C-alpha cells in the first residue's frame, strides 16, 4: 500500500463516519434527556429514502436534507409522545418503529430504486485544502463532513459547559430535582428527543445524497447502521468526544475490511464486510463488565497493586448511563 492510498483511505474514514456521528450525537441528546430512541435503524433508512426521493423530484439538495431532518423529527415525536405522555415502554415503541420504518422505506422507495439523483459536491477549503497530508485528511470534504467535525465539539461544549446543558443532564439524571429547580421536565424532554431525532434523520440524506449516493432498496447497505449507532452511543458513554472516537474506530474497521480483502483471500468478502459489527458490539462487554458484582468480588480478592491497576483500567473503560434513562417522569 502506498502512502497516497493510505492517506485517501483515512480521509474516507472521516467521510463515512460523518452520518454515524450525526446519528450518535442525536441519540446522545435524546438519552441524556432520559429517553431511548430505539428506532434509529428504521429512521435512518426511511429518511435516506425520503430525502433521496424529494431530492430527485425537486432536484434540490437542500429540500432533500430538510426532508431527512423532518422524517427523523417526526419519528422521534412518536417516540416522545408514547414514552413521555403515554408512559409506554420505550423499548417496545422504538423496536416497532425500527422495523416499520424500515419496511416503509423499502415499500415507498420501490419506485426510486436505482434512479439518478443529485449528489452533494466536494467543497475543498481554499488554501487549507492544498496543505500536504492535513489538507487531504481534513479539508477536502463536503459541507456535512465539516459540520460533523464541528458537531462533535459543539455538542460536547453544550452538554458539559453551558447552563442549558447542565439542565439537560439534570432531567436525565434526577428529573425530580431538575423539576424543583424550575425545569419543565416533560417539555424539555420533548424538545431534546425531537431535536435529537432531527439530527438522526440527517444521517439518512448524508448516505443517500452523499456517502452512498442513491437508493437501492434492500441492497443499499444501510440496514444495520442504526443498531451500530445505538451501540456506539453506549460505547461513547453519552459523551460526544468519546462517541466520536467510537464512530471513527468503526469506520476504520470497515475500511480495513476492504483493504485487507486481497491480503486475506481465505476469508470471503461478505464476512469482512460485517466483521466490524460484532467487534463493535462486543466492545460493549468491556464497557459494562466493571459494573457487575462478580468482577467487584474478584477484584477484592486480588493483591493491592494489581487491583489498583485493574480498577483504573476498568474505570476508564466504564460508562454510566443517565440515571433516569428509560423511566417516565411524573410531576406530582
Amino acid at each position, binding site marked *: 500500500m502506498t502512502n497516497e492510498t493510505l492517506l485517501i483511505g483515512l480521509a474516507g474514514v472521516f467521510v463515512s463516519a460523518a452520518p454515524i456521528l450525526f446519528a450518535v450525537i442525536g441519540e446522545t441528546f435524546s438519552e441524556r434527556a432520559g429517553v431511548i430512541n430505539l428506532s434509529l435503524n428504521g429512521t435512518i433508512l426511511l429518511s435516506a429514502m425520503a430525502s433521496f426521493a424529494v431530492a430527485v423530484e425537486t432536484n434540490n439538495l437542500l429540500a432533500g436534507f430538510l426532508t431527512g431532518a423532518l422524517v427523523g423529527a417526526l419519528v422521534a415525536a412518536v417516540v416522545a409522545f*408514547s414514552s413521555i405522555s403515554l408512559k409506554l415502554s420505550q423499548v*417496545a415503541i422504538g423496536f416497532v418503529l425500527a422495523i416499520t*420504518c424500515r419496511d416503509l422505506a423499502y415499500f415507498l422507495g*420501490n419506485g426510486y430504486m436505482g434512479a439518478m439523483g443529485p449528489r452533494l459536491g466536494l467543497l475543498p477549503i481554499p488554501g487549507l485544502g492544498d496543505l500536504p497530508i492535513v489538507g487531504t485528511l481534513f479539508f477536502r470534504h463536503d459541507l456535512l463532513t465539516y459540520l460533523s467535525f464541528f458537531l462533535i465539539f459543539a455538542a460536547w461544549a453544550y452538554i458539559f459547559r453551558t447552563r442549558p446543558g447542565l439542565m439537560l443532564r439534570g432531567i436525565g439524571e434526577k428529573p425530580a430535582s431538575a423539576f424543583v429547580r424550575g425545569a419543565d421536565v416533560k417539555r424539555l424532554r420533548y424538545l431534546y428527543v425531537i431535536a435529537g431525532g432531527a439530527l438522526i434523520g440527517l444521517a439518512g440524506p448524508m448516505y443517500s445524497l452523499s456517502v452512498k449516493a442513491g437508493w437501492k432498496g434492500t441492497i443499499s447497505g444501510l440496514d444495520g447502521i442504526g443498531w451500530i449507532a445505538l451501540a456506539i452511543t453506549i460505547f461513547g458513554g453519552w459523551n460526544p468526544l468519546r462517541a466520536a472516537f467510537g464512530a471513527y474506530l468503526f469506520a476504520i474497521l470497515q475500511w480495513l475490511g476492504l483493504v485487507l480483502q486481497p491480503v486475506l483471500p481465505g476469508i470471503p468478502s461478505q464476512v469482512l464486510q460485517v466483521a466490524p459489527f460484532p467487534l463493535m458490539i462486543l466492545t460493549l462487554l468491556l464497557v459494562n463488565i466493571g459494573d457487575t458484582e462478580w468482577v467487584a468480588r474478584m477484584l477484592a480478592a486480588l493483591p493491592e497493586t494489581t487491583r489498583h491497576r485493574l480498577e483504573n483500567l476498568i474505570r476508564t473503560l466504564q460508562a454510566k448511563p443517565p440515571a433516569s434513562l428509560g423511566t417516565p417522569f411524573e410531576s406530582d
Partner: protein
Amino acid sequence: MPDSRWNILLLRLGALLLALIFTFLILLAVGAQPFSVFGDIVGGALGSSSRFSNVLSAWVPLVLVSAGLLITFSAGLWNIGIEGQIMLGAIFTTGAIRLLQETALPPALVLALAIIAGMLGGALWASLAGVMKTFGGVNEIFGGLGLNFVSTSISLWLIFGPWKRPGVASMSGTEPFDEAFRLATFQGLRLSPWALLLGIAAVILVYFLLRGTYFGLRLKAVGKNPRASYILGIPTWQHMMLAFFLCGALGGLAGAVQVTAVYHRLIPAISSGYGYMGLMIGMLVNFHPVWAAPVALFFAALNIGSIQLPILHKLDSSLAGVLQGVLVLFVLLAEGIRQKYFNRKAASS
C-alpha cells in the same frame, strides 16, 4: 370484568381498522389500486390449497419463535438475539446432517438428531446472550444484536467457505440434501405434517408452562419485579438463564424446521426475519399465549399473500411488514391512550 375485556377487544379491532386505513392511504400514495392489492393478498394466501399450505409452513417457524419469546417476555427479557438463535439452529442442523449423512445410521434417526442439534445450537446461542447479561452487564438487546451480526458472519463464512457448493459458492446456499434427509411433506404440497406437529406441540407446551406450573409463576414474578423476587428467595438469574435457554431452543427448532422442511439446505437469509416478527407478535398478543397461534397465522398469511405483489402490481412485498408494523404500533398507542385517559373513569365508576 367482562366489560373491560370487550373494551380491549374493541380497541384491538379499532387499531386493525386504522392500520388497514393507513396501508390503504400509502397504497394510494404510490398510485396503486388498494382494493385490488388487498384482494390479491387474500387470494395469494388463501386462493388455493397449495397457497394455504405455504401459509402453514410459514406459520410453523413463526409460532415456534413466538412461543419461545413468550417465555423470555414473561421473564421481562427482550430477546432480540432470536434472529441469531434461529440461524444457529439452522447451522447446527445443517452441520449434523452433513456429518451424519454418509454414515450407516437410518435417515430418520439422522433427521431427529439434526433437529435436536438445531435446538441445542439455538439454546447455546441464547445462553451466550444470557451470560453476557448476567455476568457481563450487557443489556440483552445489545448483546443479542451483536450476536445476530456474528451469526450472520458465521453462516456467510460457512456458505462461502467450508460448506461451499462444489464448483462455485453463491448466495443460493449450500448443496441441497438428498431426498432421504428432508422432512416428509403432504402429497403434492410443500407443507410437512411433522413440522406442523412440532409447531402445535410447542404452543401447547408453552401455554402450560406459563399458565400451569410454578416455574411459569416464578418466571412472571422475576419479570415483574426481579429485586422483590430475589428477596423472596427466587433464584433470579438462574430463571433468566433458563428462559433464554428455552427460548433459544425453540428458536433453534424454527431454524431446524427451515432447513429440514423448507429449504433443505443452509441459505444466508435462513431466518427470513421471523425472529423480529415473533417479537412483534409477542407485543401484539400482550404476552398471552392463547392468542399467539392465530396472530402468527395472520402474519404468515400476510407474508405469503404479498409475495406476488412485485409481479402483479410492481409493488415491494415489504407491504406485509408495513401493515404488521403499523398494526402493532396502533395497538400499543391505543393501549397507552386507554390507560392514560380512560382508566381513571373506569376506576371511579
